[in-house]
């Protein structure tokens, strides 16, 4: 019954977007109420649909669009789980926004754009073909642009918005190229009845007709898109800057919507990735490396939101890592990855909302100025602690279950391929994660205030979502970790996965050996170690950090400058190479050479005219002489030359 209204999941937020944008001022809460209601309805439908397909079956609907393409809805377990998470988290964030944004004059625009953002994300999840997926994907990018640049008067916000759009656009270009190459390979494939070209099911059916090398190309291009959207190395640079928008937007981008789209893309097209010999290895490496790389930067950031941003990048790396281990573990990794995605959505949304609450309550963003806020902001402090525990994978939080599974997957990968690196990345990153998140918590909530501020707890519309999310971050893993994997296993048929693995030349391990006890408990151990280190340094202050935190320390400087990526990406690549050199060379060619030739020709012609008009001296004898010369010349020409035709 709910599934018949599946299209409303996207449509309602879009309606909300249009109405709020143009008539926002006339609605209660400047349109907030509309946004909340529509997203809540979407959540209800999503949840209803999930319950309907829980015991099998998928929802498929499509309408002809143009050419060979349809608009379509596909809700399988993967999509259903994702839908519920997106709509639910978005709903909570919207509720929270009513309080958080209460002083902003541009509320209608805010609610309109967030509605569109949610709609776009839901559209990505619902899509049953890769093109529609891409369209909503781009729409997500657009909304992130609008929302990050929400406070467009701030030059830094406008710049960050542009950067976010452009960097993810680089990934999108790769994704688009992937779709195009995919089309190249399946354009003459006979489409099964009831399906159409570029539909996921057609793609999967066509896997065996595509040469593996092309599959690798396609999947790597797809993964390029995922790297851009999900902030993986090396296209992660936009994500920390995306903090320029309102904190709720950060929460929306980092927890529920945009960044998970990349992971969802890989999960959605997982059979193709599996069928390619090398793609998943790349995914694993990039994911693992990103997890570690981002965590190192998270250690030294002083802006509360920036720490969380790098944490997001790092956690997304984990999700990618999980998917990458699929060459050994098989389709189960989709469940693993998505499980982490959802638990991450809860605790990361919680972290951001807490950070928002802190910023709201303290009026500060710099960790070095905070301290001792726990007394004034109990709810925020405690919920944030829960989120931090979840992030660092301390049992029994959701983060523990999800991250543990991933590291275990990496272990399987290690044992089957002998390649330890992804595992090592995962473990070290887990340690660093624990350190930086507790550093953040301790610096914010313990000790003495380092500046004068008047803290106050946030209003209920903000704290209630915090509490709900905290409960989820705490209990979700415990409640769902068994059922979740089982449910998501229905996403891809076993036959499809086996066939794909065969094409890719992978041997899926039947048995996953349990690691020896020391390794089994290692994730928890490093989590605790991290906590202890942070506690000692930032709460007990037993070390003097000034020797490390100094501009003379090259490693610290490297990290604080974020590996000089701004210099490399913006100043060198964007400004120097693309703008200065390439486009100015083009300008030179255009103005001086191409136009120069044209203007030169006309100048020469005019000059010739100026010169030869002097033949007309005005003296009639000269004219007579010309006549005679003409006669003589014609005579000579005819006697000697002639026949030029």
């Amino acid at each position, binding site marked *: 019954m709910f599934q018949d209204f599946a299209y409303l999941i996207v449509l309602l937020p879009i309606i909300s977007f249009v109405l709020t944008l143009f008539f926002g001022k006339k609605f209660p809460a400047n349109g907030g109420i509309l946004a909340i209601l529509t997203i809540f309805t979407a959540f209800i439908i999503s949840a209803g649909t999930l319950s309907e397909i829980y015991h099998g079956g998928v929802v498929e609907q499509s309408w002809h669009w143009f050419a060979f393409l349809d608009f379509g809805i596909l809700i399988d377990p993967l999509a259903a789980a994702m839908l519920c998470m997106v709509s639910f988290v978005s709903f909570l964030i919207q509720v929270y926004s009513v309080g958080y944004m209460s002083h902003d004059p541009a509320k209608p625009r805010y609610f309109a754009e967030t509605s569109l953002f949610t709609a776009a994300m839901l559209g990505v999840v619902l899509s049953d073909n890769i093109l529609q997926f891409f369209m909503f994907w781009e729409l997500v990018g657009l909304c992130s642009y609008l929302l990050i640049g929400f406070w467009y008067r701030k030059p830094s916000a406008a710049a960050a918005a542009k950067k976010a759009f452009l960097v993810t656009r680089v990934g999108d270009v790769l994704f688009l190229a992937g779709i195009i190459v995919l089309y190249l390979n399946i354009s003459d494939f006979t489409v099964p009845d009831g399906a159409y070209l570029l539909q996921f099911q057609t793609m999967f059916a066509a896997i065996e007709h595509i040469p593996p090398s092309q599959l690798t190309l396609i999947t790597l291009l797809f993964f390029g898109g995922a790297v851009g959207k999900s902030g993986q190395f090396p296209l992660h640079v936009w994500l920390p800057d995306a903090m320029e928008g309102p904190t709720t937007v950060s929460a929306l981008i980092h927890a529920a919507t945009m960044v998970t789209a990349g992971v969802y893309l890989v999960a959605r097209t997982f059979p193709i990735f599996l069928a390619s010999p090398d793609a998943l290895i790349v995914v694993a490496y990039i994911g693992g490396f990103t997890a570690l790389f981002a965590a190192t930067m998270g250690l030294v950031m002083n802006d509360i939101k920036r720490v969380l941003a790098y944490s997001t990048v790092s956690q997304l790396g984990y999700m990618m890592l999980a998917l990458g281990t699929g060459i050994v573990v098989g389709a189960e990794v989709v469940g693993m990855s998505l499980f982490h995605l959802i638990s991450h959505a809860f605790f990361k949304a919680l972290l951001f909302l807490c950070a928002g609450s802190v910023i709201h309550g303290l009026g500060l963003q710099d960790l070095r100025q905070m301290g001792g806020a726990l007394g004034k902001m109990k709810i925020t402090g405690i919920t944030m602690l829960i989120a931090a525990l979840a992030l660092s994978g301390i049992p029994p939080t959701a983060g523990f279950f999800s991250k543990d599974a991933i590291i275990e997957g990496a272990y399987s990968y290690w044992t089957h391929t002998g390649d330890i690196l992804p595992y090592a990345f995962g473990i070290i990153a887990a340690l660093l994660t624990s350190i930086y998140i507790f550093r953040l918590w301790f610096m914010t909530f313990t000790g003495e205030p380092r500046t004068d501020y008047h803290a106050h707890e946030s209003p209920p519309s903000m704290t209630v979502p915090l509490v709900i999310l905290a409960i989820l971050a705490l209990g979700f893993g415990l409640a769902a970790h068994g059922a979740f994997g089982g449910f998501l296993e229905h996403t891809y048929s076993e036959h499809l996965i086996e066939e794909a693995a065969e094409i890719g030349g992978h041997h899926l391990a039947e048995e996953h050996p349990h690691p020896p006890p020391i390794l089994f408990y290692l994730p928890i151990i490093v989590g605790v170690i991290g906590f202890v280190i942070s506690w000692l340094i930032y709460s007990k202050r037993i070390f003097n950090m000034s020797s490390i935190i100094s501009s003379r320390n090259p490693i610290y400087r490297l990290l604080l400058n974020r590996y000089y990526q701004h210099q490399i990406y913006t100043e060198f690549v964007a400004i120097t190479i693309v703008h200065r050199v390439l486009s100015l060379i083009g300008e030179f060619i255009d103005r001086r050479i191409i136009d120069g030739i044209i203007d030169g020709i006309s100048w020469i012609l005019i000059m010739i005219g100026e010169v030869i*008009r*002097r033949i007309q001296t*005005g003296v009639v004898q000269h004219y007579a002489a010309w006549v005679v010369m003409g006669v003589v010349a014609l005579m000579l020409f005819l006697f000697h030359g002639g026949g030029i035709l």
Partner: protein
Amino acid sequence: MVPLNYYLLLSGVLFAIGIYGLISQRNGIRILMCLEILLNSANLNLVAFSSYHGNSTGQVFALFSIAIAAAEAAIGFAILIALFRVRDTIDLHNINILRW
């Protein structure tokens, strides 16, 4: 009987003299005279050819042409007089306000 070539040579010489005069002289009157020489060289030709071919067409042509030359000279002098009135000179080298 004088051979045709002699006539042609004479007319050619006359033609060349006329052309030379036209190019080298500055005085308008002389120019007009040179024009007459030019026309007459052609008339000479016509008459000579007429006698050579033994038909009268050339002579008729020459008569017409002489008449036309007379009219032409009249117009030429009329223009020269008008020129002299407005410019006070008939030195054609100086008559060049229209140029380029």
